[in-house]
């Protein structure tokens, strides 16, 4: 049985998720990405007030195995970052879809959401 992903999120092919709440979007990485990376030891967060662009890098995640860029699933202005990750990057492994959120952005173009996958399509992507 393929893994299940939360239905209320949209997903990028780079394994980031986005949760939309009005003009705000919360961004994180998926459980699939976290499992592939292994134990995450460091997250380089974007600066609050900086601008992120859909599918462009906005941070870095480092695990005991590898270092990977974080790609923004949607464009916008960073309004908040998850400060807890500075001390507890392992939240990305233990709770990637809630406590392990990375940043919140003010969405600049909601139309960009159309370029993202729903949970079923993402499950299919990761199953392949």
């Amino acid at each position: 049985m393929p893994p299940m992903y939360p239905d209320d999120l949209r997903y990028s092919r780079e394994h980031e998720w986005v949760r939309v709440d009005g003009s705000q979007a919360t961004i994180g990485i998926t459980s699939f990405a976290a499992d592939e990376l292994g134990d995450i030891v460091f997250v380089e967060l974007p600066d609050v007030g900086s601008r992120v662009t859909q599918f462009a890098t906005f941070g870095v995640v480092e695990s005991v195995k590898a270092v990977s860029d974080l790609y923004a699933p949607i464009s916008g202005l960073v309004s908040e970052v998850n400060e807890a990750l500075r001390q507890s990057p392992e939240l990305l492994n233990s709770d990637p879809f809630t406590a392990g959120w990375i940043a919140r952005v003010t969405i600049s173009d909601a139309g960009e959401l159309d370029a993202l996958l729903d949970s079923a399509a993402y499950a299919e992507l990761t199953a392949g």
Partner: protein
Amino acid sequence: MAYSPHTDADRERMLSAVGVTSIDDLFADIPASVRATRFEVPPPLTEQEVRAELMRLAGRNALPRISFLGAGAYRHLVPSVVGEVIGRSEFSTSYTPYQPEVSQGTLQSIYEFQSLICELTGMEVASASHYDGATATAEAALMACRLTHRDRIAVSSAVNPQVRRVVETYCSGPGIEVVIVPADLRPGGSGLTGPDAAAQVLDAGFACLVAQQPNFFGGIEPMRELADAAHAVGAQLVAVVEPTSLALLEAPGDYGADIVAAEGQPLGIPLSYGGPYVGLMAARMESVRQMPGRLVGATSDARGRKGYVLTLQAREQHIRREKAASNICTNQALCALAATTYLTAVGPAGLREVADLSMIQARHLAAAIEAAGLGKRRFSAPYFAEVAVQLPDAARRHALLAQQGIVAGLLLEFEYPELGDTVLLAATELTRDEEIDAFVAALGATP
């Protein structure tokens, strides 16, 4: 291990695999005008002939009888134990460890080096060493740009001009703008970098202020105030220091330096026409992921035994590729070991003695020149072991003294046109009173 040369058949297969017909095709991108057409290699020589040729070449080295040349490289006593330790076969490679964890002794020696540099600088983390002080300084400037997400740096004109040129070269690629903060070089001026001058240049677009302590003229800079000026606009202070002086001067970590870079040559490495030297770099722990170069960490293995590892390698090129903290992910292991051995051999009290004696001899030198009425100090600020002295007709007399085997320091006008008739004289604990007397006598006899 047997050496297996490629056969013609091997070469044919490789050439056809990449779709070319001859080795020369691989160099087609290099314009023919700059390609070597033939190599003139002399015929083979016997060991005795090679030795004789090398001796002949070595005989052309002009070794001065007396020298007061410093300007970034200093003649200090190197205790014999330094050569003994770095000559041991377990250590005698100048290169960074690959497959590092099997070389626990090498890693431990680097860990000791890092610990000593942290103690000397008052900083929280030191890297496993860089090529030299100039590249360490340039790397420090780039590191500040990464930390602040800014792309302009301010550099005091009282930073060693050769170091500044390396910084400019490093900054030219990524398009980082280098702005000079003018030091007070007016006649009778302090010779220092004024915090006000720094504040005039700095704004919120600057990643760092690079200042040198003691500065290029030996002057003691107001580092605390310079740190404040940098921090006021959210910039870092990159302190370029001389390690011996740290035995006497305030530690960079105490006056607010964010990154420290230094030429480590004074720590047990002989002068040898420019190298090999060793770069020191230290920083705050919060900045460690943007720090370039190798880092050795101490840990314990599964059975609880102490061990050493190369740590935080995700910053490095072999993992991070083009996004690495530096494209230099190596270290100067043998020279770092020399510095480690030197510091361990002389200890804190010995290093302080070296610094004290160097300072005393520099004062003796300046006083002897002034007392003989031959010249006077160019700047008013307190100085460490190097002093700028105004000498009438300096260039001509410098050349005449050189013919007598006396190097009267560095003529500053080549780097600083406004400092004509001024020489930069350095003293160390090896500067003997007789050398000072002989120099002053020769200077007086060379009008």
